[in-house]
């Protein structure tokens, strides 16, 4: 890039500038945004080629592709921001297909008037997240919508990954009664962290989002246990919702043990206060895995060796259940159903 003739008269004002409609029109102003902000941050040979799409060299094998759009509010939250989330979320979706993520694409929908300073902060965070995950951002798109038609910035990312030769892709249908359910760490951190950014809620100890890329944890898990039946990241709706999706799809039940499900005390306390259940709160750096009973112990040991799996735990089993219930054995004694909620959990008034 340094050898190119000077194309832009004045450098992008990243300190005080704002997104303008022209930043999304495909002209020179947009090219400058790409050249001065996105390219230096996401630097990759595919992006440098400046094609509409990225050519990826893959051997014989199977690709896994996943896409996700990020519309989180607030854009910046304790432990992350929409940028890191947009990288982690899609990397994780690809990794949950058993694949090694190879590359990400990114689409920005920017609102006219959005401060470039904030955009630069988001982009830097995406770049750092992509680098840490070892997954380059290889192509992208930018659109600007009129002021009032967006919420600052929306981001779409698409991820591509390769299923290593000989690896059977994990899939819901592969879960069967007797299988064991594990999670990689504490439940509900992200969801409660986002809630805690609301002005009316402040907790003594700051709670960070768990937003993280799980691809290296997944690889470690596969090295220990070559056959994982199901891999999921319990994002929106949390563990309870993800398990309900699985049980209803497959026609089995799941029985969890409350005493074994890891939850941070701050998350538990915040949920008690708000009348929420941490098992329905979102995670952005946790996975749940279902494996054969004989593999569970080995898998757990492997997960605990990874920093993102330190708090991993065996939390329950797949059972036969024509009603497809997800039930939890409570510490009090007895069981209760973790129902498939109609919508998101709403804080209660008393």
């Amino acid at each position: 890039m340094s050898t190119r003739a000077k194309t832009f008269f004045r450098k992008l004002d990243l300190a005080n500038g704002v997104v303008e409609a022209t930043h999304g029109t495909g002209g020179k102003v947009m090219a400058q945004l790409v050249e001065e902000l996105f390219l230096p941050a996401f630097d990759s040979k595919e992006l440098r080629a400046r094609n509409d799409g990225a050519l990826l060299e893959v051997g014989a094998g199977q690709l896994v592709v996943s896409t996700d759009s990020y519309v989180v509010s607030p854009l910046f939250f304790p432990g992350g921001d929409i940028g890191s989330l947009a990288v982690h979320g899609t990397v994780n979706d690809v990794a949950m297909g058993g694949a090694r993520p190879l590359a990400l694409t990114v689409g920005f929908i920017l609102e006219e008037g959005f401060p470039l300073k904030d955009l630069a902060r988001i982009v830097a965070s995406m770049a750092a997240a992509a680098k840490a995950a070892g997954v380059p951002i290889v192509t992208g798109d930018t659109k600007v919508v009129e002021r009032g038609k967006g919420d600052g910035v929306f981001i779409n990312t698409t991820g591509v990954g390769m299923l290593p030769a000989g690896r059977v892709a994990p899939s819901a249908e592969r879960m069967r009664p007797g299988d064991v359910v594990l999670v990689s760490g504490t439940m509900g951190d992200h969801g409660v962290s986002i809630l805690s950014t609301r002005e009316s809620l402040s907790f003594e100890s700051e709670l960070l989002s768990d937003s993280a890329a799980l691809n290296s944890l997944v690889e470690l898990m596969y090295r220990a246990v070559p056959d994982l039946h199901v891999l999921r990241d319990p994002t929106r709706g949390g563990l309870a919702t993800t398990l309900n999706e699985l049980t209803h799809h497959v026609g089995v039940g799941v029985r969890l043990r409350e005493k074994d499900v890891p939850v941070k005390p701050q998350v538990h306390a915040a949920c008690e206060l708000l009348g929420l259940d941490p098992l329905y709160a979102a995670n952005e750096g946790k996975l749940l895995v279902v494996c054969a009973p004989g593999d569970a112990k080995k898998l757990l040991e492997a997960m605990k060796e990874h920093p993102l799996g330190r708090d991993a735990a065996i939390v329950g089993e797949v059972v036969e259940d024509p009603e497809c219930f997800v039930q939890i054995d409570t510490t009090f004694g007895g069981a209760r159903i973790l129902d498939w909620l109609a919508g998101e959990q709403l804080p209660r008034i008393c």
Partner: protein
Amino acid sequence: MSQLAGLPLIDEFRDGVLARKLAADIAREARSDREYHFMEFCGGHTHALCRYGLMELLPRHVRMVHGPGCPVCVLPMGRLQQAIDLAMKPNVILCAYGDLMRVPGKDRQSLLSAKARGAAVKLVLGSGEALRIARENPTKEVVFFAIGFETTTPTTAVALRAARDGGMTNFSVLCNHVLTPSALSAILASDQVKVDGVVGPGHVSTIIGSAPYERFGTEHHLPIVIAGFEPIDLLASILMLVRQVNEGRHEVENQFTRAVNREGNVLAQKLVDETLMLRDSFEWRGLGAIAASALKVRPAFAAWDAEVKFSLEDQVVKDHPACACGDILRGVKRPTDCKIFATACTPDHPMGACMVSPEGSCSAYFLYGRGRQSAPQERAS
């Protein structure tokens, strides 16, 4: 890191071993030659009874009757419709508590569906958030949809005072606060429900104290035990009620001593008294009109009273004919007695308020009753 149950001051009150010991005490002390019907007033108590399967631990002749203490459930649909209509006004931002968002009103409209049709509806966790929204949107009329028993009333009072002190002209309160003792009186006055004792509200009593219940002992000869919301609290309170009945006492006892005293929160009471006053009568969903059972904004604060500001008129919206919410709220029927329970009426498609609010007894029965052999109470043995 800790496991899911690992909170001091909560864990101790969810001790399953202690719960079984208390249940055994109840079974031993409850006389077998009579029945005990106790009403838990609060939806929070109903929820805990179901969530922890406590009714299954009780002997068959100690029965719980579920009361009307779910603020969302007793809100008449006409008042909800007022809020929906306000929210549909182009210049209004309506701020409401989360559990109101999905409650179905006229023609199955809800605040959530109004929002999808373009109404500005904001979910808030308290009145302070509504005030902030008003400050941030000076060109909009911000209305706080205030509901709840005495627990949430002081926060509405604080907002009214802050609005006056701040000279705010774009903030108002749609006041629907209701009073626990009045509802209890109305239920006890009817002869449809026979109760031998009441598990008294915990959170409400942190504000009003235990003194306002004392007249129930003298007037109705009814024992009342104010209870906390954890399973141990509830079982201990039921045991205290059994003992009062056995000994022929009718006193107000306080099991929830870690939060409630006789006087309550005097500062909060003063604030409420300064800003709000008794209504002559108020319509309760399921219970009908009850005299002196609710609060309205005082004339001195009329500038922040949405009823005055928007000249709101009373609306009457009838419940779905098959819905038994009214009888359920009065303790006359159990959720499982309702024809449409868990068939036409589920949390996904609620017909009545007892199903839509997580505090409602239908919702509690639906969430925690399934997967057991029968509804919570019927399983008792």
